[in-house]
């Protein structure tokens, strides 16, 4: 699998480290349900079959976090953007 780094260009996946789900938002630690919210944030994942948004770290290249739109069943990558400025 090759990941199109917006800066470096297409690179082998071995140059990247995988973090996972890029759709999560860190909960408010001051909220009354913070313990449950953080449990979900840290441990619970949907494991989608199909389109997914993921964080990959380009450790062997530009050392930037990249947000990648990947199909988990085909590995087809629909797009990638640097975390800095990512939507």
């Amino acid at each position, binding site marked *: 699998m090759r990941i199109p780094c917006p*800066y*470096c*260009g297409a*690179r*082998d996946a*071995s*140059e990247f480290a995988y973090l996972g789900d890029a759709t999560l938002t860190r909960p408010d630690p001051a909220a009354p349900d913070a313990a449950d919210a953080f449990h979900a944030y840290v441990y619970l994942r949907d494991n989608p079959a199909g389109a997914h948004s993921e964080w990959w770290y380009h450790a*062997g*290249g*530009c*050392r*930037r976090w990249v947000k990648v739109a990947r199909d988990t069943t085909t590995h087809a990558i629909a797009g990638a953007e*640097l975390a*800095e400025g990512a939507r």
Partner: protein
Amino acid sequence: MTAALDILPVTQMPADGPYGPAGTHGVTARLFDPPALATLAARRGGGIALAAAARVELGLDLADAPRLSRADGLSAIGTAPGRWLLLAGTEGDLAARLAPLAPHAAITEQTDAYVGVEIDGPHARDLLAKGVSLDLDPAAFPPGAAATTNVAHVNVSFWREPGEDRFVFLVARSYRVAFARFLVASGAEYGLELVHRG
């Protein structure tokens, strides 16, 4: 052909000289100590001011891309957004030379951090194909193109020199022996000349 590596401790630099079948010469690899080296990191939001200062003060067109920019013996290699390795062709006070950029960028001395390896010859790309996972055909990686990547598990930054089938690698100093072993093991079949350039 690379039996020389079998008896050489993995921590010891292979000796200068020819490797491979007698009378063949396909690749030359010259190891050298960069005369002066620094990293340049644009301050947040300072990219445009930095590019302007580089143009006015150094005559350097600082491309924010994995490319080589060069002016007056000073080479800038894009390694990440807003980041470059700056390599001086000759010894001198690089810090003083870069001082006009300091308001717009963090500048860090790196001269002893890397060694340089210049690789050329008719089989240079055949050797590199065994370790570089990028397409180095001139159509895909033209003169002046640069990349940071892993070669034989060693992280490197490299570029293709303008107008020639010559590549220059910057390798972290502590990995120089491992990288030289990769060069010998991969290049011997084409006839490799390993040289330490003074």
